[in-house]
């Protein structure tokens, strides 16, 4: 039974990909991806319940392993996958024809949507493998697979800028991941030297149990390289530059998936590596490294948000800011801090996914991604602006939504762990980003359309958000609000997941 539970998250999306491959993207098969994602979500819930009741589950000799952190991440993949796949048909309908003109005819268009369906489902399968991987090697292979799969998704639009974004995304991510591979191999050498068997030398549990015997100097180098490498995929500072380009050019559901799930999945690997590092070297080394990367990402994101002109890049830098804050939380590392960052990942994932999907609709309604050309959206498209506004309110960290509760818990854990100054610096940078984001959002959403020359020139677009497209978005926002008030459904899962990783 557990074998089935662990295999379904991989098999279901692959099956959906197969359906797209064989039958192509037609009205009947349009929602195959959504079905796959729904299956993953259902399985994730069952897995979470089982893990909570009977502890971690292992199959295939430790290659696939489900501990509370994995179950939590799988829940994220399921929900946001469902959200993104549900929004894909509407997105492709609105954008499919817009970009076909530039490429050769309808046949190519049909091929592109078919490839889109396959790649998105493949993306979900790769992320599920990465999360469930019991050992570092398989995790690395799965994350590299996500890069390969999304390369063409980023280039899906086929324009010059999409191609540029795809190239930068592939090169920078592959370099980052290669550094992580170097780290894994060095750790593997240290583990083999410490007497671990060939198969168990890369498994998390084995590594943590034998932490005392690993050589500290070699492990320090390995952990540093892995944090730097997986940090690149999590959008953290040194190799972060692909994030804004990929998110601004990729189709809206794909950037929702990337921001909402891919970055946290990569960050879960950073968490596992930090756990190993702390077991061997004590907290000092990983804390300083994570603090530098976290505060660096926060500072860069806040600075680049100030004079931002493109609202998709604005959302991407907001993701970078939140990932920086999560990294500072990981640097603090206490049980409360880890519980806070898991709640933050859940809240931010949902809110950012809704924000990206609505930004896709705004792009199709307004035809431009520039902030100063989108005027008085609140007056012209009340529903679209309302959902986009609520998502931004959640991202700005206002109360009913869970991001406020998690940021508050982060601050408390930071000061409790005697990291007063870095936490204060982090929240000052969050304030700077808040100011920039609030100013841009106000410029886009508020104001009166009657006397704007730019706006009147554009044809009045019909009400973009039909009932079926906006219900998932509104339910997602309500979910973030419920998480912010009680966090009942996942609070026990978060606490046990935090239990495993903390100091």
């Amino acid at each position, binding site marked *: 039974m557990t074998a089935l539970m662990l295999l379904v998250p991989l098999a279901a999306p692959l099956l959906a990909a197969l359906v797209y491959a064989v039958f192509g993207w037609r009205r009947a098969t349009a929602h195959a991806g959504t079905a796959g994602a729904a299956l993953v979500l259902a399985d994730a819930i069952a897995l979470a319940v089982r893990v909570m009741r009977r502890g971690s589950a292992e199959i295939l000799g430790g290659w696939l392993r489900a501990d509370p952190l994995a179950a939590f991440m799988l829940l994220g993949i399921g929900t946001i996958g469902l959200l993104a796949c549900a929004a894909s048909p509407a997105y492709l309908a609105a954008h499919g024809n817009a970009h076909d003109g530039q490429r050769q005819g309808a046949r190519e268009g049909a091929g592109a949507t078919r490839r889109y369906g396959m790649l998105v489902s493949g993306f979900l399968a790769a992320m599920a493998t990465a999360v469930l991987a019991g050992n570092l090697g398989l995790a690395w*292979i799965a994350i590299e697979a996500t890069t*390969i799969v999304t390369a063409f998704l980023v280039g899906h639009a086929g324009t010059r800028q999409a191609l540029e974004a795809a190239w930068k995304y592939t090169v920078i991510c592959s370099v980052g991941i290669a550094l992580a591979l170097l780290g894994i191999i060095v750790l593997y050498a240290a583990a083999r030297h410490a007497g671990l068997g060939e198969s168990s030398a890369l498994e998390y549990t084995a590594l943590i149990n034998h932490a005392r015997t690993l050589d500290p100097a070699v492990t320090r180098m390995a952990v540093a390289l892995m944090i730097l490498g997986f940090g690149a995929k999590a959008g953290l500072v040194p190799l972060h530059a692909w994030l804004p380009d990929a998110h601004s050019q990729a189709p809206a559901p794909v950037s929702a998936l990337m921001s909402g799930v891919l970055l946290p999945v990569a960050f879960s690997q950073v968490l596992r590596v930090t756990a190993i590092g702390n077991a061997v070297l004590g907290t000092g080394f990983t804390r300083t490294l994570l603090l530098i990367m976290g505060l660096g990402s926060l500072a860069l994101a806040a600075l680049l948000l100030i004079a931002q002109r493109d609202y998709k890049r604005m959302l991407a830098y907001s993701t970078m800011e939140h990932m920086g804050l999560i990294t500072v939380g990981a640097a603090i590392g206490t049980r409360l801090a880890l519980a806070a960052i898991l709640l933050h990942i859940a809240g931010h994932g949902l809110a950012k996914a809704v924000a990206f999907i609505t930004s896709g609709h705004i792009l199709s309604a307004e035809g431009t991604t520039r902030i100063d050309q989108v005027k008085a959206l609140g007056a012209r498209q009340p529903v679209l602006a309302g959902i986009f506004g609520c998502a931004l309110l959640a991202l700005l960290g206002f109360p009913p939504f869970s991001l406020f509760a998690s940021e508050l818990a982060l601050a408390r854990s930071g000061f409790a762990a005697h990291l007063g100054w870095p936490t204060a610096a982090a929240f000052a940078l969050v304030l700077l980003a808040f100011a920039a984001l609030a100013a841009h959002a106000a410029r886009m959403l508020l104001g009166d359309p009657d006397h704007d020359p730019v706006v009147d020139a554009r044809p009045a677009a019909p009400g973009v958000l039909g009932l079926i497209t906006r219900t998932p978005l509104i339910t997602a926002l309500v979910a973030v609000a419920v998480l912010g008030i009680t966090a009942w459904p996942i609070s026990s899962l978060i606490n046990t997941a935090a239990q495993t990783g903390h100091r």
Partner: protein
Amino acid sequence: MTTMSTPANGASELLDLAAGVFLLAAVAILWLRDVAAQTRLLAVQGSALAAMAVVLGAEQAHPELYAVAAGVGLLRAVVLPALLRRAVNARAADRETRPLLNVGASLLTAAALVLLAYAVAQPLVRLEATAAARALSVGLSVVLIGLLVLVTRRNALAQVVGFLLLDNGITAIAFLAAAGVPLLVELGVSFDLLLVVLVLRVLTTRMRAVFGSADLDDLRELRD
């Protein structure tokens, strides 16, 4: 690299030779500006890597290392360079424009990187007192040279060559430090590497169609 006088030093001498060829190929790639020549050097480096694996297999009596060596040799000496050579078409435009860092400066930097690699690899070397461990700094320096090529070359394919250098270095370290990672992982890693190179090749061809040349300086439209 001092050689010990025991009969087994025959194997370690062979190992040092392979490592020497491995490093020289990387330096040569740095020296040349012609991509086609660089792909040939990549093939040489791939075969040196395979040789290294065979010598290690013999010395540490690991039978399956031979299979891995064969696979690695096939992939890195034959398949990948072939893929690259077909991508380099005849037109002069793809030769190589002036790299960001002129050749003299990049060679000096490469020297500095080798020294840094040597200093950093000390804890790994102290781990196992074998000849293989001593050759580890070669693998690390090839990794750093690969990164240097990636950062300084304007041509898209030259960047792919840099990426392959980086990966060869990492696999070399895997062999030298712990006689190769588990077979399944090695298989997965190689398969991923193949896919990445395929993706980059497709992107390069599409870039030529859209931008007219594979020069990375045209990729400047996505900016803040």
